[in-house]
């Protein structure tokens, strides 16, 4: 520096610069001491650690939460599975080791080599999984021959285990390997390729609870890659356990009833909205998804015409048929179009415009009032009142009964169904509403579409006196130690827009369906339990003249419905049964509902008999 330093009035900072320099010198001195300690004093030790990179990180996968039914019966747990991995850096000579390994696990050595190359595992300390879920014999063979399998690592991982095969498959869902797109998403940063994630049902919806949190440990290994000691461990956090609202025996019963049929059964506690059973048939075996599923098997699931992968209770949309008459009757009573004593004459058909609308009973019902019209499901009576109400008023009530909108169940892809209105038709189809169509709507045909779940929720609302509840499938979520962290309380989503007076008239009608000599479901009359309900038979093909005597092809047969609750005076269960192409609600659906109700109420009365 070539500056001449003169005396100046601002020389104040010179002393402070000197002080600062001394402080900085001291800080650097500390750094140098530390360097000396690491490189000179401890150098040999670190050099040793560095040679094979002796400190490695090992993952500890979390244990996924268990799933129970409402009474604590275990439905889903995890089972150990043995996987074989290789760390190619430790496996020298790699070729020889692979040749040895090939003999024990029945995979050609070159296939193994390809797999390692594909995962960029050549000359790496990264373990590459070669075969998962090996059986006991293979496990024993490898354990015994460990000495000539350097770098081969046996690891235990946990696989999902669905204890009751096919049970509540659509509700519980299944796991699958996480996809590449999700791996890039920040939300899934805790996931690694090859991890499993909930793909369907509750396994998907409650993924965040079930998953738990990954842990890991630092370990020191020897030159062969074998662990010498654990340096540091972060425990994995166990996943939370789920308690579903379903009752296992009831669920199994519902599934048994649907065996060899296509359809759905939903049972709800009408006073809380908790789902007691939800079955969709045909179902699939969730355990097939645990082992990697063959292409063939997957195709057969996807291409099956009966759609086993679709949850018909929630995703299926079907015309409700005569079950809809509950709404037509309620609307007419509430709007003052009829009173309980108003009678219409049914001669077996009704001439409207230039068309003839038939009643299912050719002879006709004669003069009939609303309660009996419900009980006997007289079509003409509902044509008469439906036509007086008009489609838009009917739609208003249908929506208030929960049709046309999702119920809010915590499952993906819930269908909304369809409530037709005149503006809807104009917008969607481009033509004006024909008043004749209103007649079809009032008996649940025409454009009407509902899901079995919506019918169950509606039935539950009538049973409990008018409150629509959101269907609940998970009762509570508990941490592994039992602490409840989430409790799903019942939640009303609406009220039926009808008076208690009207509800009672409807209820009388529904009671007579089963308990009067002329009721359409008198076959399921059960002296011990008073059941109320409504049958439905919904046409699949167009409502042209049909000859009942000809046996129709399966896919043209009408669907069978039965919506019920019991006991009639103090309902504890509401059920909706839907049998696809089951033909008659009274014969194909009603007996199933009766069995479900019997099972549930006897179980409730004698809860300890089974244990």
């Amino acid at each position, binding site marked *: 520096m070539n500056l001449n330093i003169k005396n100046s009035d601002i020389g104040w900072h010179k002393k*402070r610069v000197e002080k600062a320099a001394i402080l900085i010198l001291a800080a650097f001195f500390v750094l140098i001491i530390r*360097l000396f300690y690491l490189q000179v004093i*401890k150098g040999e030790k670190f050099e040793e650690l*560095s040679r094979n990179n002796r400190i490695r990180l090992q993952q500890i996968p979390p244990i996924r939460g268990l799933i129970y039914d409402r009474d604590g019966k275990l439905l889903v747990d995890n089972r150990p599975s043995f996987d074989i991995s290789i760390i190619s850096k430790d496996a020298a000579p790699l070729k020889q080791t692979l040749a040895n390994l090939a003999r024990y696990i029945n995979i050609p050595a070159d296939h193994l080599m390809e797999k390692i190359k594909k995962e960029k595992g050549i000359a790496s300390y990264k373990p590459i999984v070669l075969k998962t879920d090996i059986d006991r014999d293979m496990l024993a063979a490898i354990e015994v021959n460990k000495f000539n399998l350097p770098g081969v690592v046996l690891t235990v991982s946990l696989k999902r285990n669905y204890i009751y095969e096919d049970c509540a498959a659509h509700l519980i869902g299944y796991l699958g390997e996480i996809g590449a797109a999700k791996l890039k998403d920040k939300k899934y940063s805790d996931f690694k390729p090859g991890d499993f994630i909930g793909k369907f049902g509750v396994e998907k919806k409650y993924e965040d609870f079930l998953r738990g949190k990954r842990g890991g*440990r*630092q370990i020191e290994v020897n030159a062969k890659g074998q662990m010498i000691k654990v340096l540091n461990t972060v425990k994995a956090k166990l996943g939370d356990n789920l308690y579903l609202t379903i009752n296992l025996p009831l669920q199994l019963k519902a599934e048994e009833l649907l065996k060899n049929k296509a359809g759905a059964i939903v049972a709800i506690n009408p006073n809380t909205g908790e789902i007691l059973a939800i079955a969709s048939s045909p179902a699939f075996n969730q355990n097939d998804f645990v082992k990697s599923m063959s292409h063939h098997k997957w195709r057969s699931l996807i291409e099956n015409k009966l759609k086993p992968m679709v949850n018909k209770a929630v995703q299926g949309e079907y015309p409700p048929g005569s079950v809809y008459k509950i709404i037509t009757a309620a609307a007419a009573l509430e709007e003052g179009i009829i009173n309980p004593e108003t009678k219409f004459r049914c001669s077996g058909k009704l001439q409207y415009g230039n068309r003839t609308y038939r009643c299912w009973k050719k002879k006709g019902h004669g003069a009939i009032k609303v309660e009996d019209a419900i009980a006997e499901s007289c079509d003409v009576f509902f044509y008469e009142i439906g036509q007086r109400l008009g489609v838009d008023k009917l739609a208003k009530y249908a929506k208030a009964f929960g049709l046309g909108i999702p119920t809010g169940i915590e499952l993906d892809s819930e269908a909304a169904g369809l409530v037709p209105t005149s503006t809807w038709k104009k917008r969607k189809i481009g033509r004006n509403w024909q008043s004749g169509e209103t007649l079809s709507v009032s008996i649940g045909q025409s454009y009407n579409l509902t899901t079995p779940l919506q019918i169950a929720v509606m039935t539950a609302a009538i049973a409990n006196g008018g409150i629509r509840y959101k269907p609940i499938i998970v009762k509570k979520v508990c941490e592994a130690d039992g602490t409840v962290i989430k409790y799903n309380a019942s939640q009303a989503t609406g009220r039926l827009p009808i008076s208690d007076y009207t509800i009672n008239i409807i209820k009388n009608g529904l009671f007579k369906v089963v308990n009067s000599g002329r009721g359409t479901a008198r076959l399921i009359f059960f002296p011990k339990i008073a059941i109320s309900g409504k049958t439905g038979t919904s046409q699949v093909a167009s409502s042209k003249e049909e000859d009942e005597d000809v046996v129709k092809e399966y896919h043209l047969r009408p669907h069978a419905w039965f919506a019920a609750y019991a006991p009639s005076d103090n309902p504890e269960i509401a059920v909706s049964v839907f049998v696809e192409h089951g033909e008659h609600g009274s014969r194909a659906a009603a007996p199933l509902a009766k069995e479900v109700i019997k099972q549930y109420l006897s179980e409730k009365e004698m809860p300890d008999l089974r244990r």
Partner: protein
Amino acid sequence: MFDRRLLYSFDWGFLIIVFTLCFVGGLTLYSVVEAEGFLFNRNIYIKQLIWYGSGFVIAIIIFFFNYKLFDKLAYIIYGLSIILLICVLIFGKHVAGARRWIDLGFFSFQPSEFAKIGLIIPLAKHYAKTSDSEGLTFSKLVKPLTLTLLPFFLIARQPDLGTAMLLVLIAGSMTIFVKIEKKTFSVLVAAGAVISPIIWFFLKDYQKLRVFTFLSPERDPLGTGYHIIQSKIAIGSGMLAGKGFMEGKQNALLFLPEHHTDFIFSVIAEEWGFIGSIAILFLFLLLIFWGFNIAYSCRDSFGAILCVGVIIMITWQVVVNIGMTMGLMPVVGIPLPFISYGGSSVLTVMIGVGILLNVSMRGFMYE
């Protein structure tokens, strides 16, 4: 306007130190990139060379303006850096859960780096006016405190707690350098001792946990704790003489995280050993003392405090970064000046070099 005397008194010595440090940085980056071969994008050292080049150009440009201009423009520079920090919170791109970068297409830059210079300049201006032999009193500390806290909170929100803390360290050190009045100082220390536990009490559990891991990485053995172990192995295994250029195993095997940015010192120490590491430390020490000499010889308060501010910035970054790689300091994303890869970091430190050269050159004006 150009004064030929500027050229005669050019500070070549200082420039040579800077060149040497940049050379070491380029060499180490080369080793890192080549060790990884196919895995790494080769053009990153081309990029780094471009930044060194542009850094020198900026330093030279700054050198031609009289540093008194910084005095006049202090608050405009400060305002600009604040606007950039606000922009990054709005338009910044997300990387690993934080918004720290503004993407300009050809270059993404980190406004928090420039904010350091943006704070040093107005602080120097303020202290040049207010300091006296008695030291600063409360009333004179309000303004610098405000000036510091604004960018602090903006950077902490990104979140980049490391850089935000560095800002406080720089401002605090500058303040202590210009001297705080004794009574004021003791009251401040007492107040800090009382307030900290109160703030602690109001922190949420996860925030406390974050502070704990920040202070002791061993609490996070799967993340930063693991990085520190690998860094220590790299440094330690270099031993006395090092493994040699491009022979660093920890580096080559990718066990070392962030080895071209925050952990680049570990690579140097592994390859050049204790001898090489000491040499680097001495080079930094030489740079710092050279800078102090410039401040020492400067004859106006603004210039002197400005230089000290820049030196303080460089010093803290060197000490925190190297301390971090050796497990002495919390793991924070603070680059090693001149050596770590990164455009914003190189350009910022080169602006600092420009300022020091500038002040150094203009000593003749007082003769």
